[in-house]
């Protein structure tokens, strides 16, 4: 079995566990490459169906290409799409550094979605290799009613036995892509021919390696204009994937604080 097959089979197992154990459940769709891979894996796990809603917590500041992509593929893939707006930045904790404060809008947006739909499970496409606090995550990660992540006392998780019992009001984040790397994602996109937003391809010497809000995401210098060129670029790079995400770099603990409060 190839490494991509092993990752695919493991993610399918996780998705089926989540769907079997946690209801109602939904998947977050940020329109980026990772969540498209995750959606693709769901269609593999459920044989062409996506048997739960797909949620876009909309900051209103994504690139126009991303909105076009969303509207097109939610129809093509027959998704049950839920779109909810995030609250304005004025309502967010002013003690956070500016970009983190902007990103934290999504935390509150997600919290509102949880309150409205009472989801017990939220499937999110984070990966361990993205960021050091994400590397500490569990595949099934319980969250308190407030959405907070208690990273000091996570439940044991081994031999693919996941925590799926939870108190009233709490929910579990499920992370089917936790063991994937950025390069794995691209190799899988290439193998499966998964559609992605064009912004990932270089134009005029620049491309986006990671897609967030327009105002807090910067493109990188690159001439990689196709998936195969991106794969070549990534296997040689020494720059981290989220280097273009301002919110990660404002302060040493910026991302940890975001995540402890319920950010993805």
């Amino acid at each position, binding site marked *: 079995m190839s490494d991509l097959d092993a990752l695919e089979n493991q993610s399918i197992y996780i998705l089926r566990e989540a769907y*079997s154990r946690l209801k109602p459940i939904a998947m977050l769709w940020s329109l980026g490459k990772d969540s498209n891979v995750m959606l693709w894996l769901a269609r593999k796990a459920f*044989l062409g169906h996506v048997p739960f809603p797909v949620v876009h917590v909309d900051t209103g500041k994504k690139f126009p290409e991303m909105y076009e992509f969303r509207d097109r593929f939610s129809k093509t893939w027959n998704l049950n799409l839920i779109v909810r707006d995030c609250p304005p930045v004025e309502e967010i904790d002013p003690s956070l550094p500016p970009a983190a404060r902007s990103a934290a809008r999504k935390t509150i947006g997600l919290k509102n979605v949880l309150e409205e739909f009472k989801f017990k499970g939220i499937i999110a496409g984070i990966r361990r290799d993205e960021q050091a606090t994400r590397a500490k995550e569990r595949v099934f990660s319980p969250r308190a009613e407030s959405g907070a992540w208690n990273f000091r006392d996570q439940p044991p998780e*081994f031999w693919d036995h996941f925590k799926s019992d939870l108190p009233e009001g709490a929910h579990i984040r499920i992370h089917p892509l936790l063991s994937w790397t950025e*390069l794995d994602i691209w190799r899988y996109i290439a193998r499966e021919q998964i559609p992605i937003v064009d912004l990932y391809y270089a134009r005029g010497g620049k491309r986006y390696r990671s897609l967030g809000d327009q105002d807090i995401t910067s493109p990188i210098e690159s001439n990689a204009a196709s998936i195969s060129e991106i794969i070549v670029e990534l296997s040689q790079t020494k720059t*981290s994937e989220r280097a273009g995400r301002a919110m990660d770099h404002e302060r040493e603990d910026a991302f940890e604080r975001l995540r402890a409060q319920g950010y993805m």
Partner: protein
Amino acid sequence: MDGTAFALQSASNAAGVALTERFPFAIVGHVDHGKSSLIGRLLHDTNSLPEGKFAELKAASDKRGGQFEWSFLLDALQAERDQGITIDTTQIFFQTAKRRYVIIDAPGHKEFLKNAISGVAQAQAAILVIDAAEGVREQTRRHALILQLLGLRQIAVAVNKVDLIGFDQARFDAIAREITSYLAQLKLTPSAIVPVSARHGDNIVTPSDKMSWYQGSTVLAALDGFTSAPVATDQPLRLPIQDVFKFDERRLVVGRIESGSLRIGDRLEFAPSFKQAKIASIETWNAPTPLTAGAGQSVAITLDDELFIERGHVAVHSDRRPILGHRANLRIFWLDAQSLKVGDRLKLKVATAKYPIEIEQISAVIDVEKLQPTQASEIGRNAIAEITVRSRALMALDLAADMQRTGRGVLLRHGEIVGGALVLSAEASDVDKRLIGPDHLVTRDAREAVNGHRGAVLWLTGLSGSGKSTLAMGLERLLFQRGRQAFVLDGDLLRQGVTSDLGFSPKDRAENIRRSAEVAKLLADAGQVVIVSLISPYAQDRDRARGIIGERFHEIHIKADLATCESRDPKGLYKAARSGAIKNFTGIDAPYEAPERPELVIDTTGQPLERSLAALAAYAEPAIALQAVKDAWAI
């Protein structure tokens, strides 16, 4: 497809990313012996750190006024950096010329053993780190023992901080002898014992020039020497069922093959039942349909016969069955703060099956220092022990020695993972297949499709006078009016017949609940929404009812304070109990154990009946909805 052309093959070769093997290994050892530093050095010396990372770590170290801390690379959390310890397990990736590695860092502090296990269980090999100045310590031994319990067989030892002992060969040799002899008792042989200085980089990636007496491999060479676990396709087939899907006309039985392989046309048996059916097809999406599938694959199959199959069944070939029995000896590691005692009731979860078990005997607790079994009456947190358990349900078990993936499981208490278990031996029960009973020719699915809802047991528990019977009768009428098959099993009515020979002692109450649960189960099998109204004061008895009825059991606590119940006193029972005319009355001279994790709580104190009933109905409808309806409801 979507306007983009792909040319993967040539590109990936040109980039040299043909390194598709990924090898996860753990770094373990006593707290402060330098695990994180070893990882930092390994990444740095293999040129694997992202740009700017070194500067970032330097800044974080300077901020805390200490010398440069490699450990900050993995100790990403503020609490970890401030206290200088690793709290939770983490993973990081790097590659050598040979293959890609996933490093699993496990905390060495005893308090965080559950986190260490969560990490190490994913590894195929381990590096055990020992501080040269401190030598072998308690967590060194405990981690080695855990490695062995988790089934790891490949291990190398790094004796760290040799610079602090002046690169002294005699001291190194003494540690090497001590750890070798300890590992030998666990039947583990280290592939290498390497003297290293993580801080200065000696013998990590490049051989050190400060220890001419050492001619062995570096840590990196030891890593490259580990081999990948072979895929277990030649073992007996074990396909634990995760779920049964009916999204379209296909009825898909899904799960991951843990060992062995299967082929279209194979006759499968669904242990621990003796039901059999043939594989009609192996279904896929966006991939060719295969004729066979093997270990590691998540599959979806269709069968030639509509058997009742549910999560927890294990598809096997009947000539290579697991052991079917009620009793087993387990080696466990216990992670919960609350000790485990004889008589405790838990669940044993093996793959997707959950068995209700009771601890019959604690045979031994293992002394980590001497590896000797010692007598004990309870098992404390982080202890390793051997126990005998008995299950009320027939279990399908494999032995850990033969079948790694299905010979192990976890122990659950109130839904929390509180321990890990290896099956050392299991006693086959003399199961008389004739008593298994015939299969209904009307399947549960068919029955539910006709009824338009699922059978279920809504178990209303609470004090006398809390409103159980009133709500039960109200819900029965409401559901009936909506076209549901609903029926109340009332405790008082049951006592006029099915349980008329029983009194109110704890033992009789237990039997009362057992019989009521069996009756409720049969009615639920017949498609009814059974609303049970029973005080059922003991948690243990209700857990037993849950064990009998399974996942269609819904524990609903009808809650009201004693004063409210007593003021209602619809049958004058409280008055009689207060005067001593009746004994063992729940709430007065017999206890009521409130459910710890009920599916629903309805507090009827000061709440109008209509609101309580509405809350109950709001819970009941999705709970009994068919899968397709349920999915729609989630929207």
